[in-house]
């Protein structure tokens, strides 16, 4: 994978190039926007890493001037409050990371960006050997199917997509029950406890946590 680092701090640029290089992503460096424009005309890159404040202009404005066929842009800047992130994403950046950022995360985001266009949605979601087939709604742990109902599988899907993060009750209720369908306060908890029993019976180390007042979260118990 080949990327272009657009960054006016040469020391940071070189260190970043080495860091992502160690993670299998090659990079070239442009220290001004003008240089970056020239390089974009002559070479193809799968992603751009852009700093906002460049000596010859504002990175956000520069993105707008690029043709629609430009590679995806990861903004990597020291301006990282919500206001800045919104400004950056509004300007057309595809992703935003605040400095200082972990090189592992930079590399992961770059790979995700390069994958994004044209890739078909994976027909399955998985986390730590727990697999949900999105077409058949079948749930497998280490290849063995678990007897999990449709409602429980629907409940599991958003949790499995974002393990370790909280899914709100509202989001889950909207997913599991139609608008007209009345939802009793305990309905969601009943689905969650059925799912817990099935996962436990199947020997999966995955746990469904209730975050009272907010929602549910999937974690994996350490062996």
């Amino acid at each position, binding site marked *: 994978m080949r990327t272009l680092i657009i960054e006016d*701090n040469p*020391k*940071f640029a070189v*260190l*970043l190039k*080495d*860091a992502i290089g*160690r993670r299998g992503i090659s990079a070239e460096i442009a220290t001004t926007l003008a240089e970056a424009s020239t390089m974009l005309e002559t070479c193809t890159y799968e992603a751009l890493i852009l700093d906002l*404040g460049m000596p010859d202009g504002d990175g956000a404005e520069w993105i707008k001037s690029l043709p629609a066929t430009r590679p995806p842009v990861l903004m990597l800047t*020291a*301006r*990282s*409050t*919500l*206001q800045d992130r919104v400004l950056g994403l509004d300007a057309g950046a595809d992703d935003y990371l*605040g*400095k*200082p*950022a*972990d*090189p592992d995360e930079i590399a992961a985001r770059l790979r995700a960006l390069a994958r994004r266009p044209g890739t078909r949605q994976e027909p399955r979601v998985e986390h730590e050997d727990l697999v949900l087939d999105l077409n058949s709604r079948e749930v497998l742990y280490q290849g063995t199917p678990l007897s999990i109902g449709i409602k429980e599988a629907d409940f599991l899907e958003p949790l499995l997509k974002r393990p*370790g*993060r*909280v899914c*709100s009750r509202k989001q889950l209720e909207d997913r599991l029950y139609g608008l007209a369908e009345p939802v009793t306060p305990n309905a969601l908890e009943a689905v969650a406890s059925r799912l817990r029993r099935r996962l436990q019976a199947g020997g999966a180390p995955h746990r469904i*946590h209730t*975050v*009272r*007042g*907010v*929602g549910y*979260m999937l*974690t994996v118990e350490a062996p």
Partner: protein
Amino acid sequence: MRRSIQLQLTIGLLLAGLISGVVMAVFVAHHYGLLSASPPPLMVAWREISDHVIVPILIFTTTFGLCAAIVLRSVTNHLRKETEKATASAQRLDVYLPQADGLPSEIAPFAQSLSDLSIRLKRHAELQEEFAQDAAHELKTPLAIMELELDQVDEPWGSRMKANIQSLAGLIDQLLLLSRSQSAQAADTAQWVDLGEIAASVVGDLAPYAVHRGKDVALRDLGAGSMTGLEEALSTAIRTLTINALEATPEGGSVTIEAGPGRRIVIYDDGPGIPPDRLSSLLARGKRMDESTKSGTGLGLAIASRIVEAHGGEIQSVFPQRSAIEIIFSG
């Protein structure tokens, strides 16, 4: 002691009337020989004093007093309007511009210097915001370089250093948010925010952190209100206070954020509780409850407290009834 101009004028007029009355009475008495060996009859003397002293003085003081009262009332009305304008501008940290005409020339310079002061104050708030932005940027660039340099180190201390760099960067962001909260009204960046939503997002964000440490975090929404402010700053402040509550809570315990009723947030924990005086010194000086605890710095708490203050709020301890702190936003 503060006396109104009206009262001072009345006292002045009465005194002037009294003194001039006595002086004129002495002249009249001398002129008509009231104090001589053979004075005129009492009735005549009284008429002389009444016609030439009391009546003119009464006519003069009444007319002058009435005119003064009318002038004074008009000036007071103008002043009241200008005061309202200046107060409103001060609340918004906005520029106050006095009425071009209408203010008496004696008061106009005062209003003008008030206006100059408000311009400088607004500019100061903007400069502070710009400075905080630049400082945050300048501080984070070397941190970002350090983070990448540490990437070449494959030792346990390398990841510990990386964690320290991240917490430093977090503090810089919090300082920036504090500075923004303080100048939010000036920079017109304040928005309408829902305290219930903020509390829910904090609980959602901290749930993995709590679960990882064998603790529980929950939300109880009792109908939280809305207010104007900076959502990110408020959320950072409540998050810092909740992390502190989670750290004070033993394993197996839980922290509950109660949002509402109204503009009120209470964070309950299973820790030993903080006495009110301990809480205020903790928030003021930025010390940690337990100085021996490992990561982070107490500065976060002091920043959280100032962010709450900048939003017109106050943090109190509910100790000894419960181990909890209460954040109340006024207005």
